[in-house]
């Protein structure tokens, strides 16, 4: 594999949108519809997209100041020191566990439902728990073998998925109009009728926006590629383009989903996109959307497991996680110890989700972590502008201090909004546990590890 040189806008947009093109975004978007009201979900997603575009300007400024593959942890370290940088890195690890476990469980549910519908002998009888084991093991082994999706393949897959989403949405819009279904009204397709979900007023809408942040998960993961671009301003362009593409895709898709089935039915299932597909076009629809889901999980889960195992490996190498996690496979040059660590945790979590069906807890926890990270990154921009006013900034977020200040305030509010009902009660305690553990680890365990390494 040769050197990746001067990455183009097309590739960077694909990289920015890649993680968010996942199977777990469909139940997340239904949670948003449930909170904001089926008819307003498109607006909640659009507002979340706008906020992510604002957050992307903060990431872009920092990435232009520090064009390094170290990404967010470098920015936070420059502004607030190592302790907070380690805390943020660990939050990303928790985010990966939560989102990865949810993705594995949801895709396993997709496989179970698709095979059950097709009636293929043996395959149609495999339970979700076994699919979970197979899905996570599959990605573990291809990562262990160091198999990487080539940049061009990743590009093609990403844009193909956007095409499929738009194509299915266009067909569904046409079908909704011809069947006389009220857009966002929900349920007529299944014969249940009525308005999809109770609206929670302004508070419900804010929650809908907070939940929708998950639909843009990891758009900032393109910033570590900054040093591979010849034009530093290409990343500031790539992130908003990716976010807008995602916002339009998911706003239309979710509106269409709640047009064809009631939110209450969709929200009870880990595979609402399949319920919609079946209502739209029967088994053929189920198979087409099953393929979209498979592609989505393949690209996002693979990138997520690869990225996070390398994050864990990097932290172990620099002494902030136990050294045992820095072992490398001597034939495949993959971080096998970090990968095994990720594999075991994600498998246990995904099996727990399978037992409890509490996938919403994992998804909303990931959304809350993203909100906290966007909040912190906005604070980093403000702090560095004060402490390093003369540092070179090839790109500066527009609007002076207003944009980062507003972004910080809004994302802090959204992070809190995630914890209130109708969110499951466990989201708050799990999030507090992840944040607390990350901070306590950074505060006490890292100095101890460093001292121990120093004695050797």
């Amino acid at each position: 594999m040769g050197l990746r040189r001067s990455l183009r806008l097309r590739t960077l947009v694909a990289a920015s949108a890649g993680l968010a093109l996942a199977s777990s975004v469909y139940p997340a978007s239904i949670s948003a519809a449930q909170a904001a009201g089926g008819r307003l979900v498109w607006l909640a997603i659009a507002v979340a997209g706008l906020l992510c575009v604002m957050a992307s300007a903060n990431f872009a400024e920092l990435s232009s100041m520090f064009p390094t593959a170290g990404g967010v942890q470098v920015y936070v370290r420059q502004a607030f020191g190592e302790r907070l940088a380690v805390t943020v890195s660990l939050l990303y690890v928790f985010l990966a566990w939560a989102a990865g476990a949810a993705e594995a469980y949801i895709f396993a549910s997709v496989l179970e439902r698709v095979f059950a519908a097709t009636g293929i002998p043996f395959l149609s009888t495999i339970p979700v728990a076994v699919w979970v084991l197979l899905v996570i093991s599959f990605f573990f082994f291809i990562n262990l073998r160091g198999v990487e999706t080539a940049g061009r393949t990743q590009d093609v897959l990403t844009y193909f998925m956007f095409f499929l989403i738009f194509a299915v949405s266009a067909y569904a819009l046409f079908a909704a109009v011809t069947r006389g279904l009220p857009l966002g009204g929900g349920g007529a397709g299944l014969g249940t009728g009525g308005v999809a979900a109770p609206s929670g007023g302004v508070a419900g809408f804010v929650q809908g926006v907070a939940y929708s942040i998950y639909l843009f998960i990891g758009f900032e993961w393109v910033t570590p590629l900054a040093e591979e671009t010849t034009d530093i301003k290409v990343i500031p362009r790539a992130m908003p383009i990716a976010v807008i593409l995602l916002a339009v895709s998911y706003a239309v898709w979710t509106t269409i989903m709640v047009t064809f089935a009631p939110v209450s039915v969709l929200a009870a299932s880990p595979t609402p996109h399949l319920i919609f597909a079946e209502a739209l076009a029967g088994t053929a629809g189920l198979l087409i959307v099953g393929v979209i889901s498979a592609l989505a999980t393949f690209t996002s889960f693979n990138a997520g497991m690869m990225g996070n195992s390398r994050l864990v490996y990097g932290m172990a190498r620099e002494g902030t996680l136990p050294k045992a996690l820095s072992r490398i496979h001597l034939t495949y040059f993959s971080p096998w110890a970090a990968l095994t660590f990720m594999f075991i945790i994600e498998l246990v979590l995904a099996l727990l989700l399978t037992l409890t069906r509490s996938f919403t807890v994992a998804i909303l926890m990931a959304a809350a972590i993203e909100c906290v990270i966007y909040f912190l990154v906005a604070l980093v921009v403000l702090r560095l502008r004060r402490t390093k006013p003369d540092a070179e900034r090839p790109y500066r977020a527009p609007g002076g201090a207003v944009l980062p200040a507003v972004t910080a305030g809004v994302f802090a509010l959204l992070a809190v909004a995630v914890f209130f009902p109708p969110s499951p009660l466990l989201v708050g305690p799990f999030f507090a546990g992840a944040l607390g553990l990350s901070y306590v680890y950074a505060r006490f365990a890292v100095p101890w590890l460093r001292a121990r390494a120093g004695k050797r």
Partner: protein
Amino acid sequence: MTPEELTAILEDFRLRAHENKIVLKMLKDWTRNIHVTATDLDARTWTMVIDNGRIVRVALEAVEPRDIHIQALVVALAGIFRGELNPAKEFAKGNLKFIGSNKDEMRLDAIIQYLWE
């Protein structure tokens, strides 16, 4: 730190790599041109030429094609190739830039890890 001193450090790294059985195993079948650029020495570049599992030479100029590119201050580069600095730490601090494939990055980091730690 002078350019001559960094040349000597890179040459010493090359010789040590060939004396280490695990590192030789990791170099197996590898053919790469690794550019090493000292950003504070007028971006002067050295190339470690790896051909079929052997680091055949340390060139005092940029040898094309470039497969991997490492950029840092000369002191950081010297520290890393002498085993005094942890490349992962320098990377996390933003003091070291690595351009290349993920797999090459892991392999080079593993070589440095096994050679010095």
